[in-house]
């Protein structure tokens, strides 16, 4: 009897231990401040969309923390001498999550579909790669033929996520599988979609058979909880539920989590810049001396050290773009006396100067910056009107020069790891009329320099052109560079692998992370 009892007990213990071992998983819980709009790689646009996509799908190439392109589904690539075609060799080991091999035809299908749907990343290829210009060579390679030399092309390729064409075509219906891919995944990514409650959370689970393999301490499951409420984040952290915060938490929340033993606050510089964008087509900021006065009236140190953390910037290009950055340009500094001199040189000297300061409603730190600017500008004879608008209103008013405020606080980060992403969208005349180009610059010299950089594959010539753009922009002072954003997260000390990447949300590729405890 006793022996039987002992046997039963020990069996139960062993079973529970086994069950315990099987259940032991490295689970990371991270909060996001907005919902996941879509997981369809042809429609991703926002930071959460990309956050999901980089885990569920692989691309031909990816980007590392230093902005270097790295092989992914493509094991290698060859760029033609005239930089008008690129041939990628598909990794023979690459397979989709259903076990079928990744083939060049999947690349062709994915890209053609992207162009047909014409949303999300399709704008990166408009006028650069035409429909039908991506060809399966039949030998495990695929060639992209560009309509023209476009130097930043390789930097845009990570945005092309590859679909399993057989599966997607089967579910295409009459909408190119948009309805199907809204809920399903047909990719080769490291993670599988486990659950998705659109209003509250998305959970992804590691694909044990991921073709790229796993290292020690892999993250088995990632739970992304949608909340932007600071108290909720703190409560989740205190209860042990949270592993990593979003980058958008308040300094107070980060400080509170830093005091908990379990968390470290990790700060890393990014290439996302924060500007005062000055409307150069509307009085009084149509006067270069007024724009320079505003630049001298800006208290950069207080903004960076008290209101919003960041690294100093001397030109509109963050220093993270090292080989293209004009480090020798002297940036503006806070000097009210020089600001007054500039006002005296302007066409508005000797009179009260009405000016509108615009900022995003609900962004407390932007309100603080605007009030700080008001205090300084009023000393110079400006009559300040504060104009706060919700973001959707700002995108609307930015479409017309007459409704764009004189001064606008805007963050801008590259959508692909190239200075072209910073310059074209913000300063080229062809991109005018959006929230990113509220300067209304339309300068032929800047246009020519940006076009020249795009038209050459020579990195030295590109660098020369981009540096000349920065010099010109600082001469015109249409953008006052406030800071390069520092990305901060409170991260569990057991979680390693976070490193900012100059491509939207690629730093949230959890295949790069490890659990070390």
């Amino acid at each position, binding site marked *: 009897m006793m022996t039987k009892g002992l046997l039963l007990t020990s069996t139960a213990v062993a079973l529970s231990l086994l069950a315990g071992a099987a259940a032991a998983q490295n689970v990371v819980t991270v909060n996001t401040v907005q919902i996941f709009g879509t997981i369809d790689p042809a429609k991703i646009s926002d930071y959460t969309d990309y956050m999901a996509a980089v885990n569920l799908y692989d691309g031909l190439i990816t980007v590392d923390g230093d902005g270097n392109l790295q092989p992914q589904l493509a094991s290698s690539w060859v760029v033609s001498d005239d930089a008008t075609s690129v041939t990628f060799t598909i990794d023979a080991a690459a397979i989709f999550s259903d076990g079928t091999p990744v083939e060049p035809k999947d690349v062709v299908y994915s890209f053609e579909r992207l162009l047909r749907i014409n949303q999300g990343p399709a704008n990166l290829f408009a006028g650069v790669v035409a429909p039908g210009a991506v060809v399966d060579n039949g030998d495990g390679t695929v060639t992209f033929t560009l309509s023209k030399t476009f130097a930043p092309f390789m930097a845009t390729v990570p945005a092309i996520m590859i679909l399993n064409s057989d599966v997607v075509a089967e579910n295409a219906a009459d909408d190119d599988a948009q309805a199907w891919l*809204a809920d399903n995944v047909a990719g080769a990514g490291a993670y599988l979609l486990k659950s998705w409650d659109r209003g509250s959370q998305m959970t992804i689970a590691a694909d044990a058979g991921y073709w790229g393999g796993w290292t020690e301490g892999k993250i088995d499951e990632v739970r992304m909880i949608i909340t932007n409420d600071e108290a909720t984040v703190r409560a989740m952290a205190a209860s042990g539920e949270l592993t990593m915060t979003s980058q958008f938490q308040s300094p107070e929340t980060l400080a509170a989590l830093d005091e908990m033993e379990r968390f470290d606050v990790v700060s890393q510089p990014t290439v996302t810049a924060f500007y005062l964008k000055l409307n150069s087509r509307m009085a009084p900021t149509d006067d270069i001396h007024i724009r320079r006065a505003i630049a001298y009236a800006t208290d950069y140190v207080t903004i960076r050290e008290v209101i919003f953390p960041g690294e100093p910037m001397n030109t509109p290009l963050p220093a993270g773009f090292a080989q293209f950055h004009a480090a020798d340009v002297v940036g503006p500094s806070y000097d009210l006396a020089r600001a007054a001199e500039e006002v005296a040189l302007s066409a508005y000297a000797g009179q009260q100067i009405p000016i509108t300061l615009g900022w995003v409603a609900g962004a407390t730190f932007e309100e603080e910056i605007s009030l700080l600017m008001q205090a300084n500008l009023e000393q110079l004879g400006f009559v300040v009107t504060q104009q706060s608008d919700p973001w959707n209103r700002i995108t609307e008013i930015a479409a017309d020069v007459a409704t764009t405020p004189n001064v606008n606080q805007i963050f801008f980060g590259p959508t692909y790891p190239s200075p072209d992403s910073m310059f074209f969208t913000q300063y080229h005349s062809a991109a005018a009329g959006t929230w990113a180009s509220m300067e209304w610059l339309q300068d032929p010299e800047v246009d020519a320099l940006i076009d020249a950089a795009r038209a050459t594959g020579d990195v030295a010539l590109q660098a020369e052109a981009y540096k000349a753009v920065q010099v010109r922009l600082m001469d015109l002072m249409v953008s006052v560079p406030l800071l390069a954003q520092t990305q901060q997260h409170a991260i569990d000390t057991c979680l390693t692998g976070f490193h900012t990447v100059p491509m939207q949300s690629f730093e949230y590729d959890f295949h790069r992370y490890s659990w070390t405890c």
Partner: protein
Amino acid sequence: MEFAAFLVRRVMWSLLVLVGLSVVIFLIARVVPGDPARMALGPTATQDQVADLQEKLGLNLPLIQQYGLFLGGLAQGELGRSLLTEQSVNDDISETFPATLELVLFTILIAFTFGVPLGVAAARWKDRWPDNLVRAIAILSAVMPSFFIALLLQVLAGYVLQILPTTGRLPRDMEFQASVTGLLIIDGLLAGRLDVVGQALRHLLLPSIALALATMGQIARITRASMIDVSRQDYIEAARAFGIPDRVRLFKYQLRPAFVPPLTILGLEFASLIGGAFVVELIFSWPGMAAYGIRAITQKDLNAIMGVVMVSGAFFVVVNLVIDVLVGIVDPRIRIRGRRA
């Protein structure tokens, strides 16, 4: 027969109200700043992409035509597609509405369960300390906004004491699909999953209390006032004179006629909480329709805005109809007066 006619009249008026609501919200949604196509495509979309999507969505059509298309879809039970979630708005609402409904039902239960007895106690011991205490509670609960209470509860119960969960409807690692009614408590009971029922109740507590306090205070005050009014009636004095015990007099002869105003308020609150719970839903990451509606408004997701408003409006109309019927049942004098009129 008169009751059937009353119902038919009410239903016809309700339909008219809903049509009017649809026109108003259709126009307001289009007047609100923002381009839905640009909001959906994201900040880096080109003008070509925006124009392409505007055409696909029919945003360039005349307003009257757009409204006609919407009505046509509504007649077939189709609320269109959400730009934000890429799902049918019908699917979005069927996913989110049960969460809000469960939250609101539990809120009403708390408000009612505590509010009515507090009101009765206040009336019974009028101008004495129970009455003063109830009045203080009612005032405090009315002046403190629900979001403030929600944050307070979250910090206390979730952060300081860590005794209750602060997000979601169930623990993250609990797998359960509420496939019958969408209400976790009912579906949990039907599935024999008492663990789900227990966890659902734990998760409901904090958001429901945050929402319930103001309503509870209102119900307590109105019950008190109504009970005092009824207590001045001759038949109550007669009951007292006949020596009928206090408890019987209060609950049998006084409460029932005094119940009509609190019942009416309950109905109004029930319906308005469906849309009004959004702040609490956001704070507790509650995946409800109110939070979905707010996101739709800020992102100018036109179909979702219309869907949420129409569903909330229909719910409001139906609940008030039910309350009107219940009031007639609770107080037969109202039914009789109605017949005579």
